[in-house]
């Protein structure tokens, strides 16, 4: 019986020819990422070594990546102290890959990993962050784990007790209408599957629309698979993957490129034709509360946020800047832009997008998670409404349980900034 993409990756990671869905395996890890919560991983890692008489030593310093993004620059002395603790640990353990708060190499973990060549097709990547699912965009089996689980990975180099997941196959066909984007595709899919529809499963993306999609778009759809409960999303690697790895991630190759078996067995197959899709909005307070934009157009918005590991990439900024150029953010609405990484920030600067944003009245912030998780930079007031290109709209997500967050594509966010109400970018012009 043939294997899905994830079965094949896991079989390789344990050095066997075949694994079945439901098998319990301990796959070798190629990349292990933590951000600020590395402070907790360190604590748990030292606990694992306690009373063993062994010197705490990570299994392979070169495979660990530490990135500061959730609260940068530090919003509190507590965070600053966590940052310091992580820097000291990295130095002591000889971990070379630390992306600190810097204007040349900092940014959100799910952009730093792909753009710096830490994501390798056909291998296992784990991160102490639920949106680690993003990296399936380059054909890795990438999933989020907790800090204690990561401590075990640091000690042993493999993930303990992983059950081989079943897979949902999603076939995507059709051409995106103008200003309908990969974000709309994934929101639509989450609405169909529900927030737990893919629990304990992987979503494998296929079809001509995916083939034509850039890695940036694939990152968007894989990023949000966790919002349907999925363990991960994955796109079988192809020429575009190799292009990205060579040209943008700076990896020389050769690459181990393989897809699922033709006779792989899927739990479910879903077909989507994007030609008929309109912009989609996830309404408060769950990500699967997805409606076509027509249902909520006209809703007044106090804060627009463009950025995050979902939609803070160069092509997202290009779309938004294109819509905003020469126009103004409506009075009564504020707009915050967070490029996903320092590299993207610089590219957006060179291309003039940042100037477009600022002249329109948006505030361009430093790369990082910003208001996405409600810790600092852009909290909402009581009763306020935000429209964001981020990936979660749970109660309290943007720092205030008495506010509402709607999720959308960068095109919708930009068009709505101009009017101050949720606005369909495909209409007009």
């Amino acid at each position: 019986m043939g294997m899905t993409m994830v079965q094949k990756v896991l079989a390789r990671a344990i050095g066997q020819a075949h694994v079945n869905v439901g098998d319990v395996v301990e796959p070798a890890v190629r990349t292990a990422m933590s951000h600020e919560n590395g402070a907790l991983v360190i604590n748990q890692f030292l606990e694992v070594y306690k009373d063993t008489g062994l010197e705490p030593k990570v299994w392979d310093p070169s495979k660990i990546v530490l990135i500061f993004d959730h609260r940068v620059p530090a919003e509190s002395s507590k965070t600053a102290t966590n940052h310091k603790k992580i820097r000291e640990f990295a130095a002591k353990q000889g971990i070379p890959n630390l992306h600190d708060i810097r204007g040349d190499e900092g940014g959100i973990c799910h952009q730093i990993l792909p753009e710096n060549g830490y994501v390798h097709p056909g291998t296992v990547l784990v991160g102490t962050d639920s949106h680690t699912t993003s990296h399936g965009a380059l054909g890795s089996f990438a999933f989020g784990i907790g800090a204690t689980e990561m401590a075990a990975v640091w000690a042993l180099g493999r993930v303990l007790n992983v059950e081989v997941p079943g897979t949902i196959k999603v076939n995507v066909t059709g051409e995106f209408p103008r200003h309908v984007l990969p974000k709309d595709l994934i929101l639509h899919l989450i609405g169909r599957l529900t927030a737990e529809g893919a629990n304990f499963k992987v979503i494998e993306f296929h079809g001509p629309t995916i083939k034509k999609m850039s890695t940036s778009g694939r990152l968007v759809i894989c990023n949000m698979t966790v919002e349907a409960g999925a363990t991960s999303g994955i796109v079988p690697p192809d020429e575009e993957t190799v292009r990205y790895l060579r040209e943008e991630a700076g990896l020389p190759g050769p690459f181990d490129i393989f897809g699922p078996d033709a006779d792989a067995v899927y739990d479910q197959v879903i077909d989507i034709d994007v030609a008929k899709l309109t912009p989609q909005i996830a309404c408060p307070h769950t990500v699967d509360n997805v409606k076509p934009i027509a249902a909520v157009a006209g809703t007044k918005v106090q804060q627009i946020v463009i950025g995050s590991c979902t939609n803070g990439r160069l092509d997202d900024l290009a779309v938004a800047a294109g819509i905003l150029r020469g126009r103004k953010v409506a009075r009564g609405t504020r707009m915050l832009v967070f490029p996903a990484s320092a590299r993207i920030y610089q590219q957006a600067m060179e291309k003039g997008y940042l100037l477009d944003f600022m002249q329109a009245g948006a505030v361009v912030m430093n790369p990082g998670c910003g208001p996405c998780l409600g810790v600092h930079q852009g909290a909402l007031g009581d009763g306020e409404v935000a429209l964001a290109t981020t990936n979660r709209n749970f109660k309290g997500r943007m720092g205030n349980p008495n506010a509402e967050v709607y999720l959308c594509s960068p095109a919708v966010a930009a068009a709505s900034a101009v009017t101050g109400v949720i606005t369909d970018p495909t209409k007009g012009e």
Partner: protein
Amino acid sequence: MAKIVRKLGDDISTDIIYPGRFMATVLPTETPQFAFADDADLNGRLKKKEIAPGSVLLGGKNFGCGSSREQAASCLVGHGLIIVARDFARIFLQNGINLGLQTVICPDIDANEGDELEITETAVTNTATGKTFKRLPLPKARQAIVDAGGLIPYARKKLLEEKGKK
């Protein structure tokens, strides 16, 4: 007997259990104070120790959806709570098991605040109504971790086996 001190709905996210703005606090000894921090009543009762260890929070579907933040599990462990839900989100369930949180998967549970539950390895009985519901076993990959007393002792054992081999 375990009393339901609060009935929560479906899709209780990690942002509700442990809001993002307290994420700089990481140590399991310090996280319990922020459990359900945006729910003044529940947080207050927990902090004032008005809720006894061994009490039940009743969830619906997809309990713990969202972030991988382990604080959402450790803050509940700190209060000795039992979480009974129709089902759990993957990372939360795994974190709970790793840290020794008592999670009970009970797809058909029907109960209300104030009801007392009798929880066995295979079933949950609501003593207020006399009805018994099937309790699902943990995924098999996870039972071994529970049996070891959590992931830290489990990983420690593996580590010692490995280093012993060399």
